[in-house]
């Protein structure tokens, strides 16, 4: 039986029982009252008869027939009264029994109703919990079905609903993905099919960099507004003309050659060293980028992008001039100090205290000169102005020159130097930068090798490379600091207290310059045993 049937039945039962209770009580009450009335009548009749009898007795009537009649009437009435009392008693009993049965039945039905409502609320709680799961998006939650009633059916329906929601969600997500993809495709098609060319043209027109497009023969097909402003030419004046109309004689020949080569070989090209001429004859520095492009048709085209960097070049030149002049002005008096002190040291007649003072002063002057040199080099390096200019270089000559340049410090330090290099060893490299690297390495070796130590400077061929090694028996670099040696301002903690002035820039320069000339640096160092730096260069 279903819950609603049970509920309906229990409430019907309740109503029926209560109605029955009232009906029975009412009918019993009526009967009871009727009997009561009868009893009262009988009693009143008996009383009357008694009174009549007493009267008759007083009047002295002694007729036996009358007496028998009175006796007959009294006993009839007494019997009637007794009967009425009996009936009254039985009705009271019946009433008690019926009321007890009814109360019992009502109690049974009420307790049944209570237990039913408890089970309903339990089922409702389960349902509420399940609903929470679904709300949280856990569509895999299944409501247990173990009743055949409405809850069982409801649970089943609920589970079905969950399953549907899950399917619907999945379907919706899939649809959204499909629609998004369709939309993207539509956008792409709009961009491709509609007037994408116009959009690109707008972008090119709005560019603040001058843009020119030419055919393969360098006839101008298009120029943008920025190009017109940069050159002073109107677009209509230059269509079909060649780009060489901008050419000045100021662009260096090697840059021009590289440009021609790149165009002929259909390669990209970039330079900041172009000098172009405007329509009015004035010149400007240009940063030029060229992209050769092959179109789908037979003929290709060339895109040129130029930026007017005249003011930048002027500022840069001013900066370079200033740095150059300032360092010159610092170096001139410094040279005199250094040279005077050096020549004083060579004089023998001097007390030891004065000699030490002069030696210290000389060392300070040398340190200052090295700092200026390193600072200038680093300024140029970081401005990207140091370029490798390779020529055929004799390694032996470079080693000899480096040793000669540093002969002052060599004499002072009293270190034994050996140079080992085959006289025919040569390579293609930038001589000036190579000397710079080696003088940094050799200068370090002198500074950080104690008196009576030795240095070996050697060059040799190793496979397709040339290696140059500077090995000393000096203080070495502590193992824990070896990973930091290429850092700017790095100085080994074990040499910081030495009298030799170090800038902490030498090894930084060695690594940076080696990269520029296409070389690599490696080293082996043991504290208090020595250091060996090896520069490896492609021959």
């Amino acid at each position, binding site marked *: 039986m279903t819950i609603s049937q049970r509920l309906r039945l229990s409430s019907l039962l309740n109503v029926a029982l209560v109605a029955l209770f009232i009906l029975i009580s009412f009918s019993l009450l009526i009967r009871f009252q009727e009997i009561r009335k009868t009893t009262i009548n009988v009693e009143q009749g008996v009383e009357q008869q008694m009174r009549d009898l007493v009267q008759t007795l007083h009047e002295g009537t002694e007729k036996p027939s009358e007496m028998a009649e009175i006796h007959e009437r009294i006993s009839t009435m007494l019997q009637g009264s007794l009967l009425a009392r009996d009936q009254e008693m039985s009705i009271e009993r019946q009433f008690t029994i019926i009321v007890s049965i009814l109360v019992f039945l009502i109690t049974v039905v009420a307790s049944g109703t209570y237990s039913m409502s408890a089970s309903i609320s339990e089922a409702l709680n389960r349902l509420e919990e399940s609903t929470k799961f679904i709300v949280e998006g856990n569509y895999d939650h299944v409501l247990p079905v173990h009743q055949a009633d409405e809850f069982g059916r409801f649970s089943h329906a609920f589970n079905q609903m969950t399953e549907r929601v899950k399917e619907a969600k999945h379907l919706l997500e899939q649809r959204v993905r499909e629609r998004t993809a369709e939309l993207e495709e539509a956008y792409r098609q709009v961009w491709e099919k509609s007037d994408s060319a116009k959009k690109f043209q707008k972008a090119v027109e709005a560019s603040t960099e001058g843009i020119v497009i030419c055919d393969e023969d360098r006839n101008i097909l298009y120029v943008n507004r920025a190009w017109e402003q940069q050159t002073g030419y109107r677009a209509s004046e230059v269509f079909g003309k060649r780009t060489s109309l901008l050419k000045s004689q100021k662009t260096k020949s090697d840059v021009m050659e590289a440009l021609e080569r790149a165009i002929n070989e259909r390669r990209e090209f970039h330079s900041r060293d172009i000098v172009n001429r405007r329509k009015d004859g004035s010149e400007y520095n240009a940063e030029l980028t060229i992209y050769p492009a092959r179109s789908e048709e037979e003929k290709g085209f060339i895109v040129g992008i130029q930026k007017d960097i005249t003011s930048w070049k002027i500022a840069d030149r001013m900066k*370079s001039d200033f*740095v*150059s002049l300032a*360092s*010159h002005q610092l*170096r*001139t008096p*410094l*040279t*005199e100090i*250094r*040279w*005077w002190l*050096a*020549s004083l040291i*060579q004089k023998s007649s001097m007390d030891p205290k004065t000699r030490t003072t002069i030696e210290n002063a000389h060392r300070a002057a*040398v340190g200052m*000169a*090295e700092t*200026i*040199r390193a600072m*200038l080099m680093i300024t*140029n390096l970081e401005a990207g*102005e*140091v*370029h490798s*200019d390779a020529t055929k270089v004799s390694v032996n000559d470079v080693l000899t*020159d480096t040793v*000669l*340049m*540093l*002969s*002052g410090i060599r*004499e002072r330090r009293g270190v034994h130097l050996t140079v080992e290099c085959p006289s025919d060893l040569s390579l293609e490299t930038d001589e*000036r930068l190579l000397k710079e690297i080696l003088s940094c390495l050799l200068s370090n070796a002198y500074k950080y090798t104690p008196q009576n130590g030795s240095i070996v400077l050697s060059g040799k061929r190793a496979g397709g490379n040339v290696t140059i090694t500077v090995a000393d028996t000096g203080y070495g670099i502590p193992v824990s600091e070896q990973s930091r040696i290429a850092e700017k301002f790095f100085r080994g903690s074990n040499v910081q207290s030495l009298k030799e002035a170090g800038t902490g820039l030498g090894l930084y320069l060695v690594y940076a310059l080696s990269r520029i000339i296409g070389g690599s640096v490696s080293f082996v160092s043991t504290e208090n045993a020595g250091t060996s730096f090896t520069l490896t260069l492609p021959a």
Partner: protein
Amino acid sequence: MSIQKKVILIAEDDEALGDMMRQVLARHGVDVTIVRNGKEAIAAIDRKQPNLLLLDILMPEVDGYGVLRHIREKKYVIPTVIVSNLSSANDQETCREFGCKAFIVKSDIDDSALWPAIEKYIR
């Protein structure tokens, strides 16, 4: 020709420095002449071409580049070593284009290192 007969011309506007250079080089037995600017240098060269020219760049009247241009115009063949305190890549490049043998930065050497650095260029 022995070293004693070699003539080194020094073009250096700093008097003290010029004198020191002369002293250092004279110790090696060469004949040293000092001029104080580019104009004097050109006059000296026109009189007699030295076996080596030690040329400063920044000088009054005519600078080192003026002297180098003059040498090129006159097609003189004079081994030239720049001894200057200028050292920019531009200056070094320009001097290389003029065919200078070496570029010595004065403050980077001691006076004693001067002779070993130039000796091999004396013609």
